[in-house]
């Protein structure tokens, strides 16, 4: 190889550095303002992380400094994970989110395929119900569903936490859009080749729908991890408490060890933030896909 191949990385490295030189003063000011705004937006996270490392009497110190004078992070996090039932809360949230997602996918994918590609009586009515239900939040249907769960004695169970979300009309709507775009000619050819409808779904449609399924999964898990309203209604014991709901306990002097309080807040927030940092593209797609509704 020639000399240029040694020089080239260096040149590109210089070009990389040069690219950070602001084009104009206005550009530099704009960038500065954007980062100032970003700092304000993430300050609550930084404050939370910092508080979680401090002893209680340092949390509300009037001059904020990130690193504590007396480091109590180890004690705080140990307390949250092993003295307090946070591992149970996290496990509950995980079970609920996973259970909801699995049932949502198992019910939505076949229904969406039927609505997109098959002819059957009642199809228009079913789709009408799907679209109408898109507008109905859990806050409106909560009372009858709660009363029904009381009647069958299933309050304060995993089932009661998951049941109202077993069908996602949003997923059906989304996947139907996705499946509709799948070329009929390929499906017909597969039928001629002797594929059964189930094989067509599993071997052709589902692989093609993976981007939509992945983005919806992120959307669903985040929504139910963070949900407060429904767990607040059906959970009655510590054993079934979800992570998001557990934060409400601090309303009533549950723990006046403030450092530990914010260690628990960090533990509850962390899983979704980590998922976001690793699956940023999926997150963003899940949001822009929600725009399809409009």
């Amino acid at each position, binding site marked *: 190889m020639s000399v240029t191949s040694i020089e080239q990385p260096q040149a590109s490295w210089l070009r990389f550095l040069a*690219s950070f030189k602001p084009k104009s003063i206005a550009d530099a000011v704009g960038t500065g303002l954007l980062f100032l705004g970003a700092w304000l937006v993430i300050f*609550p996270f930084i*404050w939370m992380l910092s508080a979680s490392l401090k002893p209680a009497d340092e949390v509300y110190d009037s001059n904020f400094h990130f690193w504590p004078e007396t480091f109590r992070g180890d004690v705080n996090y140990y307390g949250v994970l092993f003295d307090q039932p946070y591992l149970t809360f996290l496990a509950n949230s995980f079970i609920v989110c996973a259970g909801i997602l699995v049932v949502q996918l198992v019910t939505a994918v076949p229904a969406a395929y039927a609505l997109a590609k098959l002819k059957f009586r009642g199809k228009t009515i079913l789709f009408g119900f799907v679209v109408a239900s898109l*507008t109905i939040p859990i806050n409106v249907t909560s009372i009858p569903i709660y009363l029904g769960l009381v009647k069958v004695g299933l309050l304060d169970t995993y089932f009661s936490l998951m049941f109202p979300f077993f069908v996602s009309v949003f997923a059906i709507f989304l996947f139907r859009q996705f499946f509709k775009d799948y070329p009929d000619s390929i499906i017909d050819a597969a039928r001629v080749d002797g594929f059964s409808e189930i094989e067509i779904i599993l071997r052709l449609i589902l692989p093609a729908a993976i981007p939509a399924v992945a983005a919806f999964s992120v959307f669903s898990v985040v929504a139910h991890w963070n949900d407060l309203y429904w767990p607040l209604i059906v959970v009655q014991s510590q054993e079934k408490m979800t992570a998001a709901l557990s934060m409400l306990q601090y309303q009533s002097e549950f723990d006046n060890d403030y450092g530990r309080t914010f260690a628990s807040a960090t533990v509850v927030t962390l899983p979704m933030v980590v998922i976001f940092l690793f699956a940023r593209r999926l997150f963003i797609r899940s949001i822009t896909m929600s725009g399809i509704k409009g």
Partner: protein
Amino acid sequence: MSAAALPKQEWGRRRLAYLLSAPASLLILLIYVLPIVAVFVISFTDYSLVYDGFNFVGLDNYKQMLTDEHFAEAFRNTLIYAAIFIPGAFFLPLVLAIAIQRRRRFRSILEVLYFMPVTSTLTAMTLVWRALLDGNQGAINNMLVSLGLDKVNWLGDGDIVLISIAMVSIWGIIGFNMVLFLAGLTAIPQNLYEAASIDGADHPLDRFFQVTWPLLAPTSLFVSVNTLVTAFKLFDTVAVLTHGGPDRASEVYLYLAYLEGFENFNMAYACALSLVFLAVLFLVAWLQTRMGDRRRTHA
């Protein structure tokens, strides 16, 4: 056309369609259709979880709303909150999206930072906000004092508490709406800007009003409707931050419905409140579709 007249294969496919859509249909029936019917029926009774039996009372629950002080207050609080929240939740992300979209440097890091609150667990972060907004020792008041300003009683003053809640909610939604606007901006063809500049629209504001704003209209419509509905659905922040206080100053519509249903067990009244809420949501959805249709026929 009778079923027998169909080719055998076609009939099999039709049976399969029923099989495939049956679980979802059954669940939609149980989770949406029957509960809505039940909400409707219960709203005409005096049913309460604490007593056995019930009577039909006609429109009494709906009449009660007209005289219920708490209803009037919650309704007003929701509107005030929405009036503070919606402009901030719309324009801040719009400006940010425009500012971020054109730069190649730092774009992804800025996107990540502004988006962080969207993924975070709002109940946990609200706990942090409660500490930051604390009237005596909160970080925000500390900062105000160090700037020589007076402390503000963010959560304890009935005239300010809705502003504080709106602030927290705006913080939570900026990244979400920004991502929607960014997607809308990316879809605008670059040559339209070039064409506009040939026509003499060189100033950034000209470019904005002649190209960006009109072409962003579908995104803007979606964002505003979504933001409006989010405003009406405010619940979590109130439940963690203020419990509706001080003195009901932050008691918003859904929080009132929750209290009536699950704290006071006035199930029937809560059902009437829920139905009114649903009627508003359907109205918004209907208006959105109509506006979308009109735009399409104009285009």
